[in-house]
């Protein structure tokens, strides 16, 4: 393949007054991922380039960034595919404060996650000595298993239009996590999670634009999961009304 350009967002708050874009030229080998290209760039051309990475196989969630404007994992994106017209533009994830170059501060993301109490809250009955039996129809288990695939890369936050407008919105990843427990037959924590979920900045902020679902590198149907939570809560509201 011919030489192509990487156009990379650069900003170091300790040195730069404002952000700029820097151009690098690379000659990609077949099969080169955007992440490998970045690693080569850092080792061979510019050691000051900052980005996060670890597993290089789409499992640790470190290297989410905007690739030609879309939130993706650099390790799962082929240069050949992204290069299109010969230029790959890399920018930090939208909606997060930039620490340096492609590295963003995800603190807000983690705080939102904790608000849904993302842990198993079992019912009052004592746990058996061995495992709890779990007999879910295949499809239901599948849905649960998918929802537990989240790698916390935050691509969904960068793509969600609601996140852009309402900073307090819990956002797709936190809600998917909540769904993962709400849909787990071993969990009895609905009442404890309700405060966070049944709230204008909880499930109701989602207007089903499905950008999160499209963006998820693990192919989690986040919008669908949020819909399930909305249904559960709506059903409860109707029940309560009926009782009153």
């Amino acid at each position, binding site marked *: 393949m011919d030489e192509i350009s990487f156009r990379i967002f650069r900003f170091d708050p*300790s040195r730069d007054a404002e952000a700029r874009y820097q151009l690098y030229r690379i000659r990609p080998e077949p099969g080169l991922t955007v992440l490998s290209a970045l690693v080569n760039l*850092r080792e061979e051309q510019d*050691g000051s380039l*900052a980005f996060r990475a670890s597993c290089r196989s789409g499992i640790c969630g470190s290297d989410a960034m905007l690739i030609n404007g879309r939130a993706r994992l650099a390790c799962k994106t082929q240069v050949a595919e992204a290069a299109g017209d010969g230029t790959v533009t890399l920018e930090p994830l939208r909606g997060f404060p930039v620490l340096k170059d492609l590295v963003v501060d995800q603190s807000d993301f983690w705080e939102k996650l904790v608000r849904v109490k993302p842990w198993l809250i*079992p019912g009052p009955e004592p746990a058996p000595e061995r495992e709890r039996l779990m007999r879910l129809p295949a499809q239901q288990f599948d849905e649960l298993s998918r929802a537990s695939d989240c790698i916390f890369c935050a691509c969904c936050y960068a793509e969600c239009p609601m996140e852009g407008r309402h900073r307090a919105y819990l956002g797709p990843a936190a809600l998917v996590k909540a769904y993962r427990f709400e849909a787990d037959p071993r969990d009895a924590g609905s009442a404890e999670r309700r405060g966070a979920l049944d709230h204008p900045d909880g499930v109701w902020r989602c207007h089903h634009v499905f950008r999160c679902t499209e963006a998820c590198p693990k192919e989690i149907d986040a919008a669908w999961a949020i819909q399930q939570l909305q249904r559960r809560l709506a059903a409860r509201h109707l029940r309560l009304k009926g009782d009153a």
Partner: protein
Amino acid sequence: MEVRHQVVVVGAGLAGLRAALAAGQAADVAVVSKLYPVRSHSVAAQGGINAAIDERDSLESHAYDTIKGSDYLADQDAVELMCEDAPRVVYEMEHWGTLFSRTPEGRIAQRSFGGQEFPRACYAADKTGRALFQTLFERSLKAGVRVYDEWVVLSLAVADGAVRGLVALDLKTGELHTVAARAVVMATGGLGLMYQRTTNPYSATGDGTAIAYRAGARLKDMEFVQFHPTSLVGTNVLITEGARGEGGILLNARGERFMERYAPRLKDVAPRDIISRAIETEINEGRGLPGGYVHLDIRPLGLDLIRHRLSEIYDFCRTFAGIDPSRELIPVQPAQHYMMGGISTDNEGATSLPGLFAAGEGACVSVHGSNRLGANSLLECLCFGRRAGQAAAAFAARAGEEAFPAAALEEQRERLAAIRKRRQGEHHGVVRRELRGVMTDKVGTFRTGEDLAAAAAELARLQERYRSVALMDTGAVFNADLAAYLELGNSLDLAQAVVACALERQESRGAHARRDFPQRDDQRWLKHLLCRYSLRGPVLEEAPVRITRFTPKERTY
């Protein structure tokens, strides 16, 4: 910043978080991690975690398979302890919420793994590490475990022969911080990045192991590096052994199922050392594919099984190799995968340095001996992580509150100032690339005295060059160039330990195969090599293997 905790755990992978949760029961504990916890490599583990939970299986059989797999170098009391603890570990994780795959009866599902006589690897599709890790992470959020993330630990502070805490570099600001502690648990994982071909992540540079080594702790079993038979050609990401556990088979260029010749009984699910050598032999004898690989065939498993139980593999093949494994053969080759050796510990995680404990892949209790069985590492992390955490908390309760030695911070400050000041010199990236090349070429699956001696000489030269390399980036915020430079120092020290031990051990055992000494020699070598740091290079010592009831015999599969 100066902080103080009774116990500090370095590393937020499976071993580190488990240690922190255990220590937190009895002490004030904090975790320091260079990655945000969920980025730890434990999340990449695919295949499973072993536990004899089926009525037809037994603890004894699990222990025997592990010890035989270790080529009799594992310490048998430690293995028995781990195998006994395994069902408790798995049930505990299930109770805490891990989403294991299930049998139709609703029990935890198990699959076959290499070198085992019973299908005892409990699994969550092919994302077992992620499932287990998420559960631990969730527990740590619930318990409010304090984590200092993106702090790279640089050194241990030692005074009067005991550990007093550590010094760390805050990546976000470039500042140095000190963490005073009565006990430290090292749980920093693997060291695979010293190899060109590895399934390990960029972060696997053996930091904690190297730091403990330089601080005076002994390393153990460093000659035993595991090469996984099936990494995807190109990026070398892992194709789990579970793919063969589910029925996948290996084929050479002629389409022959060659494992029938090397391990007539277990064939494609023989232990890793045996399969990796078989693949290399096929390739060396001209029966590999051009470029040096063989094929893994999982087509017979069918799309449905592949998409459900091997979903990550399905994704990897499409993303990284552009192939559909339900219709095409997967090109695979051996790659460095796991480090059997590490900081030498007893069964409670205690090291030779008072106040220092260790667990996980960076430690060596010796439950794996010279070859780890698949699905025993996650188990080791959870079993010995917990024990190390408990022991560290108990140690902290007995130890007094001591002052943090200021010299420890000063030393690191000077080291960083010196490298930041250096304006000229080759970039450390060049040294790293050469290191990875040397290790892959000369310290791989098959070894010879000649190659190892050449590697030792080459490493000494690389160490020399390392002393005068320079950075490209001298900034403060998120200086990955500086972090990589520091990591390289760790890789180099550990590579020297690996080569020194490999040169010393004149026999073939488990993952250590010497062409010049092709036989196992129990008379002379049924023992561990310990390794102590000195400025002149590794100093070797010996330690006996603890044998309880399994008498060493020939290993056939």
